[in-house]
């Protein structure tokens, strides 16, 4: 999976291009307003993305605790409403908390370090192969076999539509 440009870089690029390439060519006030709305929405997504999974996880765990505490506060209360409160606490509220997701930037950097290590292996294996070390062929195949599904996954999750747009 690609790590640079980042998803934030891509979104920022679209926002900048709307300013530089699109808005100067828009004659209609409604179209200009829509372009500004698109920019605003994209800016919101930029701010939402880095924290989205961490926030969902934290809120999930806090809701678990609150479901249990709210039911506990009704100790001694009878009736179907209080029973349903206790039931929710015993079911959903008693499920284990979710682990905190890894920090996105730390994950990106760790991924990048390993990608660079694999790349550097290619240089070393090339020297060995040119020196006639046949074991290097197998070693290279190991790396390539690991990489193939990564590229297939990348192509599937970041697809291209329309070929080279704008080129006739």
């Amino acid at each position, binding site marked *: *999976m*690609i*790590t*640079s*440009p980042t998803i934030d*870089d*891509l979104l920022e*690029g*679209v926002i*900048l*291009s709307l300013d*530089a*390439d699109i808005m100067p060519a828009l004659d209609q006030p409604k179209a200009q307003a829509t372009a500004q709305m698109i920019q605003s929405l994209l800016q919101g997504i930029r701010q939402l993305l880095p924290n989205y999974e961490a926030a969902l996880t934290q809120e999930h765990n806090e809701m678990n605790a609150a479901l249990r505490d709210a039911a506990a506060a009704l100790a001694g209360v009878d009736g179907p409403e209080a029973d349903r409160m206790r039931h929710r606490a015993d079911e959903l509220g008693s499920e284990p908390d979710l682990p905190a997701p890894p920090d996105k930037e730390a994950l990106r950097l760790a991924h*990048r370090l390993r*990608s*660079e290590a*694999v*790349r550097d292996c*290619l*240089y070393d294996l*090339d020297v060995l*192969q*040119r020196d006639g070390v046949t074991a290097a062929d197998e070693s290279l*195949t190991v790396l*390539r*076999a690991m*990489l*193939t*599904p990564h*590229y*297939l996954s*990348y*192509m599937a999750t*970041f697809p*291209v539509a*329309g*070929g*080279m*747009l*704008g*080129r*006739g």
Partner: protein
Amino acid sequence: MEEQLSAVLVEHFGDTDAVVVENLMALPGGFSRETFAFDAVVTRGEATTKMPMILRKDPPPSVALLQTSRLGEHNLIEALRANTGIPVSQSHCAVMDPTIFGEQAMIIERMPGNSQTSDLFNDGPDAGQVDDVVRHLCEVMVELHEASTEAIDPNGELRDPRGVGVDPSTWDSYMDTTLEYYINTYPEMEFDPLLLTVLDSFLWLRRNKPRPCPLGVVHGDFNPANFLYRDGEVSALIDWENSRIGDPREDLGWMVLMDVLADTQVMAHPVDEGGFLAYYNKLRGLDITPEELGYFTLFGTANIAVPVNSALARRTRKEQTEFLHLYMIQSSAPALMSFLSLVGYPGVPA
């Protein structure tokens, strides 16, 4: 810009009373140059002639995908016009003074014909012409590849146009120095380690050189967007900026990849000749194998990939903010799969 164009053309023609520029319009299309269509209304005495023209202008160096010379392209086009029957636009002049248009530029004839070559494919409106057009396209390429390099490049401008140490004095020296250039430049173009398969392919190319083939003038960006057609013939082969002395199989290999990226089927035609490669082989008697074509798909792609990915790397480092370069990170991604397939990665679909 109209005033500058008029002034340049008056000086170029030398014998005109006036040149009026009409219908100036920016064109989409070329990824590497800024292109404008216009009509030059040329007055000589009582006579007035309307001449369709194109201004090809360099982008600022920081966002240029390819650093090439407009004067070199002008000289090449005029040499092709003088020495071959290849359909090319007349190049009126190269404007090397960047103060006139902001960067180097050239003014060329705007040729007739449809530049929307996608109309030929996928049940497009001109699908009925595709065999005839591609047959002619193949014949044009054969003429280019068999053209005398001494006649087309008398001053040696095409021997190493990027000035990167390529030595085309023999086929082996050409291949070795070109591969050295690719491999040494890889660190500059690595906008993301995902490109490591490109490095893998460069190293693989060096380890697996095929049989030699006579060098010749190659177009350098022979792809489905770089020709115009009408009435079943190619009316112009365009965009000569990356032309050089090279192995002709590079042009064929680059077309293979661009056919995939552009969702066209140039290489499948003309059908009655068994496709582009079979017809090319028939005309030249070279017997280029599919394996060689695969090798030169990688090799020819590398020639474009090095400068283009270097530009994308500058965009990723935010040295400039050109949106096209971000788009190309996505649109060129299928090329990576072609690299995997051609080098022989396990598990890659054909």
